């Protein structure tokens, strides 16, 4: 488990076998606005890495660059030892490669983004059947087991609009798990939820952390971040201001900005 600044993370080609994600010197601009100014991070298998930071700090953008929902302006992204080939303009060079890599990353969105025209069960089986080519029966059984796991087996035939935000987000987690992802990416999974529904979603994520899933998590839930992460990165104005084990980042923050931030969210 390491996460380093741009300068010292450019390592030789030999990859440690247990590396899940490596981001090197990631830059991203929207027009003239530079949102990410050189972010590097590494997550090994089984790590839970949490990105925290104020609004506009670039933490969501950083996560979305990893599966190219945003095209980085420059930088390297290596998933499971495979570097994503990028053209000069930041777009992925090979549609095939990016599709293959995306299908190993389980993304959970702030706004759930369950497909509204499909039942929960169909949402969970959609990618296994139509992208990964898993036989229908197998995908179906696995989806039912996953819905069971997130406590929604009874809602398998319900359409998303009939569910609470917490239920939708749990279903979205089941959908991401259905592809048996090498890394789960959580983009502020509880920010759109009513306060009383946050707990049920966090408890599902906590279980995943406990079973050793590799996860990259963007969140505003500081207590939760402290509890589940083994590495916390504090982003400020597109740069890593401070990072380390949660006890260190939350317990003995060094920089003034982080101290200020932790005070403001406490």
């Amino acid at each position: 488990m390491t996460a380093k600044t741009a300068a010292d993370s450019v390592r030789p080609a030999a990859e440690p076998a247990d590396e899940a994600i490596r981001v090197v010197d990631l830059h991203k601009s929207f027009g003239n606005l530079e949102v990410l100014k050189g972010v590097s991070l590494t997550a090994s298998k089984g790590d839970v890495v949490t990105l925290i930071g104020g609004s506009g700090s670039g933490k969501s953008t950083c996560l979305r660059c990893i599966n190219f929902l945003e095209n980085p302006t420059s930088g390297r992204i290596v998933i499971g030892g495979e570097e994503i080939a990028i053209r000069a303009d930041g777009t992925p060079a090979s549609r095939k490669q990016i599709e293959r890599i995306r299908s190993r990353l389980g993304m959970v969105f702030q706004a759930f983004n369950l497909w509204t025209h499909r039942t929960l069960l169909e949402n969970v089986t959609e990618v296994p059947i139509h992208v990964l080519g898993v036989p229908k029966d197998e995908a179906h059984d696995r989806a039912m087991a996953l819905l069971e796991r997130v406590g929604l087996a009874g809602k398998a035939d319900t359409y998303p609009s009939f569910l609470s935000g917490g239920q939708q987000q749990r279903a979205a987690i089941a959908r991401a798990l259905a592809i048996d992802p090498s890394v789960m990416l959580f983009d502020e999974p509880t920010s759109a939820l009513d306060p009383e529904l946050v707990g049920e979603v966090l408890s599902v994520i906590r279980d995943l952390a406990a079973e050793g899933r590799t996860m990259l998590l963007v969140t505003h839930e500081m207590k939760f971040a402290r509890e589940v992460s083994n590495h916390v990165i504090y982003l400020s104005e597109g740069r890593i201001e401070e990072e380390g084990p949660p006890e260190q980042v939350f317990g003995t923050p060094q920089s003034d900005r982080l101290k200020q931030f932790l005070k403001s969210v406490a």
Partner: protein
Amino acid sequence: MITLRSLLLPHRIAMMVVFAALVLWCAFTLRWDWIPKYAPLAAEGIWRTIWILAVTTVLGFLLAIPLGLAQAIGPWYLAAPARTFCTVIRGTPLLLQIWLLYYGLGSLFPQFPWIRESELWPYLRQAWPYAVLALTLSYAGYEGEVMRGAFAGVARGQIEAAEAFGMPRFTMFRRIWLPQAIQSALPTLGGETILQLKATPLVATIAIVESYAVASRVRQDTFIVYEPLLLLAVVYMVIAGILAFAFRKLEQRVPVKGH
């Protein structure tokens, strides 16, 4: 929701009595003796109306998908012609379009020997290909505009979720984008299809014997004016009712909270 109890309210009973009286009055005082003689022709005409409607709406809708897509996300060299097509179609009378195709193309084609000698000539000499083409293009023009809005209206997050899971572009279009666009356009498409039904009598002007043409024939032969038109109105209402019902069933396939 219609229940037996709600049907037994006094004002409803009164209206039903009035309606029954009207039907009986029509049945006994108007002339219906022409029906047996013209029944086979009428059946043929109704069948032709349904057939023209079905073919032109299906083909028209298949055209509307690329027309809508080109306008929603296409590069300018696809978007501009698509927009022009929809504007022209929606900006000119359908009757004019039918006549332009039938009298224009229909009189242009015979001047080319290779067309006259082609396999298609026996069909191109008839009126129905021009009628089907005109109605298809018309439906495509209106529905292209509807689908443009429907494609653009699908929430960005729905597409993004498909992308995030590595769905190939065409799979994403087929499984997520298109079904959601159609679902949101269904109420409009249902109405437009009923409008299309009511536009079909225009093809009678190029000598196609559909429902309306049969009613005209009866009038010309027998000088009976009202009765065939009354029956025609009932026929269109029944078809429109079936269409409305079918579209409502389609809409309900994906239940939405609060509806």
